[in-house]
């Protein structure tokens, strides 16, 4: 059982890297911090592979690890105050120069998402981009379903202003 868990974790990490990075950059709003966060997540996953229930969704398990590292370790260090983190206005556009292939609407939406409170941004990612049901998002974020819905409503309101 634990051997199959370890194998599944090891072989499953790589296909999840891009999505882990996206989650990390949505949480941290910093591509550099996202790199570190993904690396820490992979290490933690390897260390704790025995705890992964083989056959269940590895991506969700990795997301939970990444979130817990972000909340308990990285954010707790208040690294954002130490510089190196982009301002909210630049947020998710990953800076103007690199926004190139992304069309204007996309980068406007990303900017708007970047200005949202962390909790709303994260909820939007999980439900809209990662396909979590409201109940799954509520459980992952440890909040009531009603809060998931009100966060999504706030995201919609913010986005509607771009129309």
């Amino acid at each position, binding site marked *: 059982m634990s051997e199959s868990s370890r194998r599944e974790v*090891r*072989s*499953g*990490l*790589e296909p999840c*890297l*891009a*999505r*882990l*990075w*996206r989650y990390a*950059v*949505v949480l941290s709003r910093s*591509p*550099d911090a996202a*790199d*570190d966060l*993904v*690396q*820490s997540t*992979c*290490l933690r996953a*390897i260390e704790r592979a025995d705890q992964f229930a083989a056959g269940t969704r590895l991506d969700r398990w990795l997301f939970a690890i990444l979130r817990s590292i972000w909340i308990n370790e990285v954010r707790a*260090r*208040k*690294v954002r105050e*130490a*510089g*190196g983190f982009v301002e909210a206005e630049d947020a*998710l556009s*990953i800076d103007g120069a*690199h926004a190139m*292939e*992304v069309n204007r*609407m*996309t980068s406007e*939406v*990303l900017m708007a*998402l970047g200005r949202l409170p962390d909790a709303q941004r994260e909820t*939007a*990612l999980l*439900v*809209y*981009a990662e396909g979590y*049901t*409201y109940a799954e998002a509520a459980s992952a974020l440890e909040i009531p379903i009603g809060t998931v*819905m009100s966060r*999504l*409503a706030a*995201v*919609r309101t913010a*986005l*509607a202003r*771009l*129309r």
Partner: protein
Amino acid sequence: MEHDDERLAALIDNELDEDERRRLLERLAEDEGLRDRLGRLRQDRDRIVSSFDALLTKAPVERLRAALPAAGGVRRRFAWSELAAGVVLGLMLAGAAQWIGVNRLAPDETDSWRTAVVEYMELFTPDTFAFVDPDGAVQSEQLKAVGAKVQVAVTPDKVAVPGLRYRMAVNLNYEGAPLGEIAYTDAAGAPVLFCMTANGAPEAPPQTSVKSGLSYVAWSRGGKSYMFVGRMPERQIADLAQTLVARF
């Protein structure tokens, strides 16, 4: 209206139970305004999804994969303990990068990054790199990643120093500027670092100094600053640095 939006959004997100769904669909059939509203909400949702998807294409997958020795096929031949040690060390250094950012001593000094390197290098021991021994392919990959960040061409040949053994190269960050670090060990296993950062510093010829018992050679060229540092006498570090000074 707001309540309707909530329901319409739940409909789009496939979150309504059968009854609610049927009732809402009946209302939609009758109410053009509600249908317009649904259309706009659907559009907003699509825009959010496609923006998040665009973000996905920005993920530095190659770099992340390179930092993931455990999952790649190429490096399976290494012992697991070596792989794990490599990952741990990389993370330790990555952690150190943040630590550098937080605890900089002299932010107004133009070479404060060097102070930071010295500070955390004090944590290194001869055991630090004991289980890190990448082969040529991994070396090239690591150096390529560092070179891409700092925008300096770095290859195994170019960073080879006679008498020192290459151990690893990692990307760090100092005050928003990429900081590349290449680690070696000497014959006794003592760590020696070659660091580079694209900080736009003015040209400066190589200069040898000692800080906290560590000797280092520092120079700047072409908008990049370099530092070669180890726990050894000044003269020895200056001798060892010669090949690098000539190439960078």
